[in-house]
């Protein structure tokens, strides 16, 4: 009996040595991957940090082309001294022409890939993904995580609605909703977030600007940040106020009938960060005036945004999913046949809570 136990002990320890190991400085950890479609060929770009002295890292770039998307990573491997590891991938960037052609294959492959995390960011680049990645690798930014940090910062603090791989897949696979991704653009030696790219079945169909993406953020779920500029006028004086969202909730309701109507009740608790000097905000009357004008403008802008979605036939707000949850045996096809002429009415209610510490 005792001998058997010793045997078990020894065998267990020895078998534990059979594991396959990946040692951190013997792999190439790629942080961002770009996909482009150029001149009839797919181009893949990977950026990864190489460790020089101590904590200093230097971004490096690998790029390769192929006639399919599948063997881009294996081909990158053939240019790399160390095995490529995708476990720390933080960003997948699609060039616009690639996105137009369809990102389905990449998305399905990411959905199957057990190595990548669900908080991976996807984004679309105006022009080439490769050029954007080169900027982050070669200019003063010199940071492999620059783009993914930029996106995450804007989700947390600014106008970008929450996105990541999970949310994209949820919108992509789900019935009654369409995915959207952050849209990045090269500006000089920097990269700038320029709004949202809209997708229909994995194909890029258009974009909206950063101001509109704040509205999308409001309409999607409870949000706690973002800023929005609203024009304001009083006695022929014209100016703008800057609204800062503190907490916003949206509530959808469906009125059934021959022509169903969807009402969106949007309640924004906001503070006004900046306003023209001629405006006397502590004055109750002017306060009401500003509030009314803000609500009117937001209503107008949201209506315009929704009709833009309807015209393009995309549904990033998940209106179809909302109707599904209120309809027995909902049918996707027949719903989207009538989607274009669906009546969707926003009702915005702005509560101005603060105007800052000075008057």
């Amino acid at each position: 009996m005792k001998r058997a136990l010793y045997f078990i002990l020894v065998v267990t320890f020895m078998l534990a040595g059979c594991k396959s190991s990946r040692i951190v400085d013997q792999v190439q950890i790629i942080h961002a991957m770009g996909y482009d479609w150029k001149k009839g060929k797919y181009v893949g770009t990977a950026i990864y940090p190489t460790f020089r002295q101590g904590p200093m890292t230097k971004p490096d770039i690998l790029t390769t082309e192929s006639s399919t998307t599948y063997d881009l990573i294996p081909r990158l491997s053939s240019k790399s001294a160390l095995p490529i590891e995708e476990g720390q991938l933080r960003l997948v960037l699609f060039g616009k022409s690639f996105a137009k052609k369809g990102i389905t294959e990449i998305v399905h492959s990411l959905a199957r890939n057990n190595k990548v995390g669900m908080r991976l960011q996807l984004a679309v680049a105006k022009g080439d993904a490769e050029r954007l990645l080169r900027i982050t690798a070669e200019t003063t930014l010199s940071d492999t995580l620059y783009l993914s940090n930029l996106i995450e910062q804007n989700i947390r603090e600014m106008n970008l609605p929450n996105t990541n791989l999970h949310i994209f897949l949820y919108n992509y696979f789900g019935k009654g909703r369409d995915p959207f991704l952050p849209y990045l653009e090269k500006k000089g030696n920097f990269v700038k977030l320029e709004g949202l790219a809209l997708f229909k079945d994995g194909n890029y169909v258009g974009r909206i600007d950063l101001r509109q993406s704040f509205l999308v953020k409001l309409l999607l779920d409870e949000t706690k940040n973002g800023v929005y500029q609203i024009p304001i006028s009083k006695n022929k004086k014209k100016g703008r106020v800057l609204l800062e969202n503190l907490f916003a909730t949206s509530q959808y309701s469906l009125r059934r009938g021959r022509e169903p109507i969807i009402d969106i009740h949007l309640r924004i608790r906001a503070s006004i960060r900046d306003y023209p000097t001629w405006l006397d905000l502590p004055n109750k009357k002017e306060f009401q005036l500003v509030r009314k004008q803000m609500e009117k403008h937001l209503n107008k802008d949201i209506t315009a945004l929704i009709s833009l979605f309807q015209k393009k036939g995309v549904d990033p707000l998940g209106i179809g999913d909302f109707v599904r949850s209120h309809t027995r045996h909902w049918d996707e096809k027949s719903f989207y046949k009538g989607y274009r002429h669906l009546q969707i009415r926003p009702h915005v209610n702005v509560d101005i809570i603060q105007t800052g510490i000075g008057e």
Partner: protein
Amino acid sequence: MKQGNRERFLVSPFFVFFTIHGAQLGVGVLSFQRRLNEIVGHDGWISIIIAGLAVHVLIWMVYKIFQASGEGKDIVRVNIECFGKWIGNLLNAGLLVYFLSFALVVLRTYIEIIQVWVFPLMGTWQFSLIFLLLTYYTVSGGFRIVVGLCVWGFIVPLLTIFPMLFFSLEYAHYRNFLPVFDHSIVDILKGAKGVTFEYLGFEMILMYYSFVKNAPQSQRWAQWGTAFTTLLYLIVIFISTVFYNEEQIKHVIWPTLTLAKIPEIPFIERVEYIIISTYVFVIFPIICLAVWAVTGGLKQMTSLKQRKSLPIILAILFAASLFFNKREEIALLDQIVSTTGFYVLIIYIPSLYVFVSVKKRFQSKASMQ
């Protein structure tokens, strides 16, 4: 003297909670949302409640069977007394083969998960060997050791794995539950049939019933164990219904593990790998319990000593685990075993119950006259 000796091998009725619950909660909970979703979509939670209620009734029947057939008997003796030596032993052999293949399914599915998620290059035999050596170590310690393992198999996952699932509520879409009852009653019942597979394992009480002190009193704990399983399944299905939508879940093989991709801790960026490793605590008690049930049954049937039959059983398990390599083969094995298990539950236990209670009524009438 003999009675005192036997007492050493028994466990308190309280522990039935852990053996019942531990045996039910296996690899199925990692992927049952997907199968359920195919049949009833977002109404799956109703099916779980129905299946749970059915299992409560089945457990009640098991206890009635043993009460009617007298103290200190296990299923091997009951079968022989009810159906005669030949048919009874045939049923016993069938049960043992079923328990063995139950252990095999759990073992092979877990190894598959490790291979897919963590170590794609690793062979089956290495894991299988480590597991079965550990099983040998545990089971040769006797039933009480196996039950002790079940207790840890309850506590450790509940404290480590379970809380990780709640992180994904960050992405909850509570609207996904609406409209309730969007599927027909037939679909919901079909779903309930599908979920019954996830409750399999509790029928091993047929084997260890005689090892429980004051066994009839342990029914309360057996029922609580099942109720707790139902509660866990409801929580898991609740979280995955709000996290995934119906189309998305079709593309995920192990929805519960993919749920665990969401939490991020500063020093552990990817929790699912930790969960897969900790899952040994869920898997291991089941394998031990099933292997123990097989050796115990063999001892009753053929008076082969457990210490002698154990290596043979483990060798069979080892060889069989190497036999299934492809995803479809494993899925097929899983399907065969769970279908068998379903019929064990739905046909064998109720008919044995009817048989035993009718027989008892006749006997008591005969003794009255």
